[in-house]
């Protein structure tokens, strides 16, 4: 039987490895010279953003979910450590609810987008 703490730390490491690639890509698409535009502001233009979301929506969603998993798992760990295990249930429950809310919001951002 694998310990819960082992799963938790492996989750953090595996999502971290995925995030190296996903975050690098996410930051590089904001570099004007790589997008063939003049300024940083131009990379955020409606047409560019729509093209990004409609073409790479799945990748953006994977990025959002992996980032949320990594972020909330880390936040939960810190909060559990700070409270010395007094509010385990409350903290874990709140984190799961936040994950569902922001995961749904990210999904809606990709699915609900319309052309500008």
């Amino acid at each position: 039987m694998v310990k819960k703490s082992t799963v938790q730390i492996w989750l953090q490491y595996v999502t971290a490895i995925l995030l190296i690639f996903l975050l690098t890509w996410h930051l590089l698409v904001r570099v004007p010279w790589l997008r063939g535009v003049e300024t940083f502001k131009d990379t955020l233009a409606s047409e560019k953003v729509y093209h990004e979301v409609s073409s790479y929506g799945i990748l953006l969603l994977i990025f959002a979910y992996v980032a949320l998993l990594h972020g909330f798992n880390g936040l939960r760990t810190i909060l559990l450590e700070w409270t010395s295990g007094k509010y385990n249930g409350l903290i874990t429950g709140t984190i799961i609810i936040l994950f569902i809310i922001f995961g749904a919001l990210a999904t809606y951002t990709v699915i609900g987008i319309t052309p500008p």
Partner: protein
Amino acid sequence: MSEGTGKVLPNRPGWLASVNPWVLRVVNNPERLAFVLHRLTGLLMALIIMAHIFVTGTPARVGWEAWAEEIAKAQGITVVTLYFFFFAGIAWYHGLNGIRLLLVEFFGTCIGKPEKPKPPYLAPSLKACQRKLLYTVYILWAILWILTGYIVFMG
């Protein structure tokens, strides 16, 4: 380390201690600073990710007009560019230090091999390349953050 008061036990000096780089009174301890910065940037990232998902959902939630209004402020020194600048700085540090942690903790590289303790009792991990890796993180962080500032404010 805390001596312990009525409410705080020795060796458990409370949550503030976990973000204090100098809680361990050890000279030459950049690893502790790296840990505190990783924790602080991680906390900030977890909070900013929520705001980022909310803001980037504007075209789907509100519409492209609202998005265009926000993006009009993404030039020069404004709230929008400052947000991108600080978010990128936090992400750069957390990402670069995260790669170092993966190499050192997960893949076990740059920490040296166990050896018999001999005077002057310097741990193998302090003689191995992990500390060079740490200084590389600080240097790359500064370079990439300056470059980000150039792109966001000047680009």
